[in-house]
């Protein structure tokens, strides 16, 4: 506070009623207030007929553990530093939890080089898999048919898959197998 403000406060205080006068007025007026009627204490005695208070005056009444915990939480809110401390600890724990949590996607997108079977030559098909087809099932189908995803998925979910037919499985048979698969909703040979 500046010196001028101090002076201003002092000046205001000097203009105000002085404390001695205030004390005099308060004490004079208190003298005119009659004491409580004796019957009043009888009323009080009537209202305290119940069992007397227990324990040492300095000991708070015993409470259950749950009540004690609730009291502790309530008291913590009355002490801002403690409450903010708890908030800070919670924030740190949350950050650590997020930082250490493994990154796990809820879904996978098949990618072009997921299955490498060395299928460098062979017929190519455009395929749309059923929306409920599982990754494992698709991978098993591709392994069974010697197929490999070489492109996709496109905007409409179309994959480009190259197959490497074996002598026992011609392209025609392969196409029949794939068309009959419940995992595939669309298949067409690409030329």
């Amino acid at each position, binding site marked *: 506070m500046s010196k001028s403000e101090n002076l201003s406060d002092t000046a205001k205080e000097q203009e105000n009623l002085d404390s001695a006068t205030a*004390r005099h007025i308060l004490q*004079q007026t208190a003298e005119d207030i009659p004491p*409580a009627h004796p019957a009043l204490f009888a009323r009080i005695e009537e209202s305290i007929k119940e069992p007397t208070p227990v324990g040492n005056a300095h000991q708070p009444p015993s409470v259950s553990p749950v009540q004690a915990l609730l009291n502790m939480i309530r008291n913590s809110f009355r002490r801002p530093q403690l409450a903010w401390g708890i908030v800070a600890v919670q924030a740190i724990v949350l950050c650590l939890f997020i930082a250490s949590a493994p990154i796990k996607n809820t879904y996978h997108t098949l990618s072009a080089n997921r299955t490498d079977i060395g299928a460098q030559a062979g017929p190519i098909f455009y395929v749309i898999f059923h929306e409920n087809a599982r990754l494992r099932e698709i991978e098993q189908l591709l392994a069974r048919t010697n197929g490999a995803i070489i492109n996709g998925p496109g905007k409409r979910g179309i994959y480009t898959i190259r197959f490497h037919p074996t002598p026992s499985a011609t392209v025609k048979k392969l196409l029949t197998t794939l068309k009959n698969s419940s995992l595939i909703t669309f298949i067409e040979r690409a030329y």
Partner: protein
Amino acid sequence: MNRPATLDPFLSLLEQTAGGDRDAFAILYQETSQRIKVYLHRLVGDQNCIDDILVETYTQVWKNSAAFKGKSKVLTWMIGIARNLALKEIGKKRYHEDIADHPEIEAAEIDLETGDRKEVFSRALNLLSPKHREILDLAFYQDLAYREIAHILDIPESTVKTRVFYAKAALKTALERMGINSDDL
């Protein structure tokens, strides 16, 4: 306990009360009831209401004496109980009424030499808000330290100091409205 018993004249009585000593409680009542009554008179005003609050205050003192933690003086603690009960009675609006809410009070020709000083002072005090009468009572009649007053009112000490200043100013204004210059007192 935070302080030696010698500094708090009512501590021993309260401890005995906590132990169920009704005689000690009666003495505690005798020694404190007038001060609490004066405080309530300034805060509430209505005599019937004051009696009811006094009964309830001492009932609570009896019931909660064992829970007294010694964070304040016994009288401060008791005034705090009385205050909570009184505020329920008078309501927030009346508590904050100000001298400006009584424009109908005009200057009165009063002769301080005729012996009606107390009447004048009472009327001047009645012009103040309960809030201002309360702080003046706590500071200048109960003679409590600002720290104790802050504890009762649950406000910072700096606010107590400011409120005392404005309460004194309001009392001065009230006296002047009644045609009395406080310098003449």
